[in-house]
């Protein structure tokens, strides 16, 4: 049997990729439960591993104003996932929840609740932020040192896992005759004692069906990769090309041994977009159309303004790139999204060279730079490519990011999934009930290290 592909569906989100000018898009499309339900049911019909939701903590701003040219606004991640638990039966339910602006006690309790209610389908994408812009919506403000982001994530995940482990595996007796709900001394007290997470709690929930909900991680820096190797079950990566993917895959999987883990214990799942057509030419035609819907004039201008870090409203996006240089020293004009740009002057030089070589306007340049789609072609071509990436260890599968809400996955499930199934590299039926089973992850053992920190019940503390 060939290596099995893992596929997930990303609910189209707050970025230029989501096409909102399609006639099917209505004001309520990004928030109506029917949208989430449709994507979830479609993903489940296609036997995908999980649905993925991103998170918002503050509306994005550019030049001191709300960004208004992309999709804006979304519901609360955890709450939507819990609602989806009731209308799906097998699909994993994954979401980003920030570990900086949430308390570990609450995070652990929410994901334990989701895992109980979904009978073992919860997954948490752990991210951190440290900026004052996001912090201004929360009690502690921008309290976290940038350098502590990964330490915060590590301590929060370790605290959550200790809380998930605090009840003994056989704690619930539910013995009506004897009148024993939880067995004596089976609900432990967790003391974390960390520098960033110092709490003491006896959690309200027994171990959930998965033991530990699945942990996803998305950081790409060296520290991010190390954290993934240490604590994550899957990585939401962004390495799209075959060679980059293979390098990332080898690097991260190579780090697992030092934590006593095997390569199959961590799945690498890059985000991937797709455009299908009956013929290669039709797919290319649709690609061009979608790119122009995604990179509308305001989007192109905002994108170049981000790199230039200055107001470019005087420039025609159908004309050439600005002759002036990016402002490097000034504070960023963009708030609420991570900067793509490490060295603006060098990137501007590359863009100028590219646009001169190909004779590209600002908008055409932006399409060239950000409008690429991972897989473009006939369903057969896309299926072949996905399988080739997975079989050649550029990934373990993909998190598919449709460009339309909520019908953007329909065609993939109808036309590409059956071809992957024919190849024998994607399931035709779910063979398990939990997300860990779908992902081929080992059962979550109750951590030995945690047990040492878990005390027996103490009357004084539960009075």
């Amino acid at each position: 049997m060939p290596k099995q592909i893992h596929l997930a569906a990303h609910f189209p989100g707050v970025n230029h990729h989501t096409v909102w000018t399609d006639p099917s898009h209505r004001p309520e499309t990004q928030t109506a439960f029917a949208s989430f339900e449709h994507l979830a049911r479609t993903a489940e019909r296609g036997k995908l591993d999980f649905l993925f939701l991103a998170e918002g903590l503050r509306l994005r701003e550019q030049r001191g104003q709300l960004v208004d040219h992309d999709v804006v606004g979304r519901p609360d991640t955890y709450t939507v996932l819990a609602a989806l638990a009731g209308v799906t039966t097998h699909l994993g339910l994954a979401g980003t929840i920030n570990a900086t602006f949430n308390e570990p006690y609450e995070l652990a309790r929410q994901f334990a609740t989701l895992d109980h209610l979904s009978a073992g389908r919860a997954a948490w994408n752990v991210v951190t932020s440290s900026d004052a812009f996001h912090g201004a919506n929360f009690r502690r403000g921008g309290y976290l040192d940038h350098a502590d982001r990964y330490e915060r994530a590590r301590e929060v995940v370790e605290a959550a896992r200790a809380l998930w482990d605090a009840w003994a595996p056989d704690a619930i007796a539910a013995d009506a005759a004897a009148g024993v709900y939880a067995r004596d001394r089976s609900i432990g007290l967790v003391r974390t004692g960390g520098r960033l997470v110092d709490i003491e709690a006896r959690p309200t929930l027994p171990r959930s069906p998965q033991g530990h909900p699945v942990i996803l991680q998305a950081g790409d820096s060296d520290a991010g990769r190390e954290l993934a190797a240490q604590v994550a079950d899957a990585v939401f990566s962004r390495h799209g090309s075959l060679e980059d993917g293979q390098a990332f895959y080898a690097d991260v999987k190579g780090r697992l041994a030092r934590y006593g883990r095997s390569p199959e214990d961590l799945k690498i799942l890059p985000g991937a977009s797709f455009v299908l057509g009956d013929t290669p030419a039709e797919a290319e035609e649709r690609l061009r159309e979608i790119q122009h819907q995604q990179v509308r004039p305001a989007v192109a201008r905002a994108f170049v303004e981000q790199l230039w870090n200055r107001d470019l409203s005087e420039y025609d996006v159908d004309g050439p790139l600005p002759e002036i240089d990016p402002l490097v020293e000034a504070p960023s004009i963009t708030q609420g999204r991570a900067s793509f740009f490490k060295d603006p002057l060098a990137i501007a030089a590359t863009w100028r060279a590219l646009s001169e070589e190909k004779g590209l306007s600002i908008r055409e340049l932006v399409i060239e730079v950000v409008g690429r789609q991972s897989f473009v072609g006939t369903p057969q071509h896309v299926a072949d490519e996905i399988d080739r990436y997975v079989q050649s260890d550029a990934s373990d599968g993909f998190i598919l990011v449709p460009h339309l809400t909520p019908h953007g996955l329909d065609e993939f499930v109808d036309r590409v999934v059956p071809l992957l199934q024919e190849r024998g590299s994607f399931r035709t039926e779910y063979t398990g009930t939990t997300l860990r089973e779908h992902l081929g992850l080992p059962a979550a053992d109750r951590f030995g290290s945690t047990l040492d920190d878990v005390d027996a019940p103490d009357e004084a503390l539960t009075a």
Partner: protein
Amino acid sequence: MSESRPFHLAVELGGAGRHPAAWRLPDADAAGLLTAAHWAELVRRSERAGAAFVVLADSVAPPSAAADTVQARLDATGVAALLGPLTSRIGIVPVVPVTYAEPFHVAKAVATVDLVSQGRAGWQVDVAAPAGTGAGDVQAAQFHGRSAVGSAAQWREAADVIEVVRRLWDSWEDDAIVLDAATDRYIDRDRVHDVAFTGTTFSVAGASITPRSPQGQPLVVVRGDVPYALGVAVAGADVIRIAARDVKEASALAARVRAAVAGSGRPARSVKVLLDVETLLGRDEAAARERLAELDRLAGRPYEPSGVHVVAGAERAADALADVVDLTGVDGLVLQPLAHAGDLAVLAEEVSPRLREQGRLADLPAKAGPEAPRTLRDAFGLDRPLSRYTLAR
């Protein structure tokens, strides 16, 4: 007070019921208390019983040390969200304690329950155990860097939380999403507002990330009978819950709450007062007595009501509930079943049909056809308010 006006029923659910031994009854589904199917069934029964809403009890308390009680407890907001798509008429009101919560997260979570239930969400505001009690320190220790404060300070902060949550719910005007391709604008940024709230213990700068929900303002429920809470309830609640030892005390308390509402300048009709009533229901008197005897036998001690209660067969229970309303002048009752499964079955099949027949139950008619679903605010005759930012234009 009119003697035969219809009143509202609500149901509060927690554990397996109010009685500590409730989980030990044969129909209690003791092994399934943490499953989606269990909660869906209970709330569907409540919906059939014509309840305007269910309150899903929650707190930041650790599990009880008493092993003969249900020690596990799901997060109420998660359960509320689960129930949204699985029900069609009943309101869903999780208790969300605010003392250690992020107001920003509370606002978008309740707004999202409103989205997934198409306008049937509420929020019962609560606080943690106060300083000076062992429980207060235990609860604070669950949160990094926090220590317990007194009840007065907790409720002062809760008032700020209600204010900022209500602002966040209004921060997107109803028509903020314009989808104007000609000008490349998804939103009209003049219709999305930073709340810019600075309180004593926290501040929130921006707008919500969640557009305005179906009700605009989900129903806010606050207890009016705990120290320091009444003022907060009067200022910010749509529904005020009270509990009392007997109908006489309930009547006095209800009058006091209404006087406080009148004194605040809010229209009397804009605030509903609901009284807690513990119930143990049987199909007939003998069945009710037998169930209570069984609960007492299991618990090893007789049930002691914590206040107004109705332990009765269906026929007498319907009359007793109506009498409680008539004698106290409240707008409705929050039933607290001693044992969920049995009580809700009798309520749905025997008690509510009698109340309906007598024209006493203010429930929503079951609807056919594609008509827009009724909201929880509708159930209480409360208008859907415009955003304060729209009104300020």
